Each structure stands twice: as structure tokens, then as C-alpha cells.
């Protein structure tokens, strides 16, 4: 009797060069999504529902918020999570619909440049913001500024 060796049906395929990037992207969308619901709903409630709503928004309103470290951290987290979440979403959409390699590559480059620009810009604004700029008209400044 001759024995034939048959490979086990579920022997692992070779996964050389493969990474779990897409798995982490998928997981990030879900985890960041939960955080963003809290961050964005809080942002919308405070800026659009409380008090005068949209009519209360001006430089003094923003300066008053960012005088509180809580809102600085809130807005910084919201900026980073929303931009990365949105950029990854748009990346998926581009991958789905842009069939030509060159078009797909350039659209994603444009997306990444726009995302990096806005994330860096927003971060710099939050960290270098001056609520009481010296040359500004006093009546436009928050009440805690000297001379306002």
C-alpha cells in the first residue's frame, strides 16, 4: 500500500510582504468614530444651541473658549481625529472609483497634502493663539483682556 501525502487543507498561505495596515485603518475608523460623536456633538451643542447660538460666534467667543485648556484639548483632539478619519474615508472612496493608476495616485497625493496642510495649520493656530492681540480694537476682544 502506497501512502500519498496530501497537504493539510488549511496550511497557511505565504503572507510575505503583507501588512495589517488596512486592518488598523478599519479599526481606527470605528474607534475614532465613537470619540468624534462625543467631540463633534459637544462642539455643535456649545456653538449652535447654547445661548445665542450661531449669532454669538465671534473672535471674543473663540478666545474665551480657548482660554480654557479643556477646549484647547477638545478642539485639538477633534481636529486630528476628524481629519484622519475623513482622510481615510476619502482614501477609500478614491481607491473605489479612480480606476487608472496615475489618476488614483495623484488624487491621493492631493488628499494627503491637503490633510497635512490643514492638520498642521489647525494645530499651530491652537498652540500659538493670542486672545489679546495688541494692535486689535479693544471692543472685539474678550472681556479678560487688559483694556477690553
Amino acid at each position, binding site marked *: 500500500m502506497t501512502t500519498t501525502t496530501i497537504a493539510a487543507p488549511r496550511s497557511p498561505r505565504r503572507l510575505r510582504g503583507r501588512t495589517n495596515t488596512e486592518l488598523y485603518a478599519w479599526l481606527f475608523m*470605528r474607534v475614532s*468614530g*465613537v470619540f*468624534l*460623536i462625543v467631540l*463633534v*456633538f459637544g462642539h*455643535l451643542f456649545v456653538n*449652535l*444651541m447654547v445661548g*445665542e*447660538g*450661531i*449669532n454669538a*460666534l*465671534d*473672535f*471674543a467667543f*473663540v*478666545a474665551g473658549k480657548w482660554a480654557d485648556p479643556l477646549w484647547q484639548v477638545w478642539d485639538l483632539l477633534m*481636529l486630528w481625529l*476628524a*481629519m484622519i478619519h*475623513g*482622510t481615510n*474615508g*476619502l482614501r477609500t*472612496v478614491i481607491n473605489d472609483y479612480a480606476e487608472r493608476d496615475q489618476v488614483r495616485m495623484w488624487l491621493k497625493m492631493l488628499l494627503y497634502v*491637503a490633510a497635512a496642510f*490643514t492638520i498642521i*495649520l*489647525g494645530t*499651530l*493656530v491652537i498652540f*500659538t*493663539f493670542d486672545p489679546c*492681540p495688541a*494692535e*486689535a*480694537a479693544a471692543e*472685539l*476682544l474678550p472681556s479678560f483682556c487688559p483694556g477690553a
Partner: protein
Amino acid sequence: MPKAPAGTIYRGREGMWSWVAHRVTGIGIFFFLLVHIVDTALVRVSPESYNEVIATYKTTIVGLMEVLLVAAIVFHAFNGLRIILVDFWSKGPRYQRQMLAGVGILWLVLMVPFLVRHLSHVFGG
């Protein structure tokens, strides 16, 4: 070999349309976000320039666009929770239709008070 009848179209019903709506709202929110970060960055230029751009947010037409924006965000948020439940809850796929109805109910529960409040700000001055 039987040929597929002409003119067939994929009919994914609730699952497909919620997927489409999730994409469309997501893309819309993303482009608003780009604009919103740049306009907020004007606080770093001067109080005058920031107040000037934020004044456009208080006009009637943009006030109504904010309703569309918030409607899109609220749908995307609750449908996102539905997607998480479909992925992680063992009974999620079975109840995805019912959960979409839940998304609609939660959407209404948040949108009605928001509409009343926001429109009174937009039209009340």
C-alpha cells in the same frame, strides 16, 4: 449558458442605500471640515478678519446650509454606530434594518429640537 436578463440592477435596499448615504454625507462633511479649519485659522490673522468670515455663517442662506450640515453629521454619527454594531455585535447583521430605523428615529429626536433652536437664531436675528 443562460444570459443575465437585460436591465438588472443591484437592489441592496436599506443596506445599500445607507452605505451610499454614509459615503455622500462623509464626503460632504470632509470638504466642509477643510473650509472650517481654514476659516477658523483667521483668528490668528486678526479679530476683524475672523469676525468678517464668521459673519457669513450668520446669513440666512448659510444658516440653512448649516441645517444640511448638521443633518448630515447626525446621520453619519448614528449610522456609524450602526456599522460598528453590524461589525462587532453577533446579532448586528441580522438586525441591520431595524437598526437603520433606529438611526432614523434618533436622527429625528435630535434634529427637531436643533431645527427649532437654530432656525429661531437664523431668522430671529
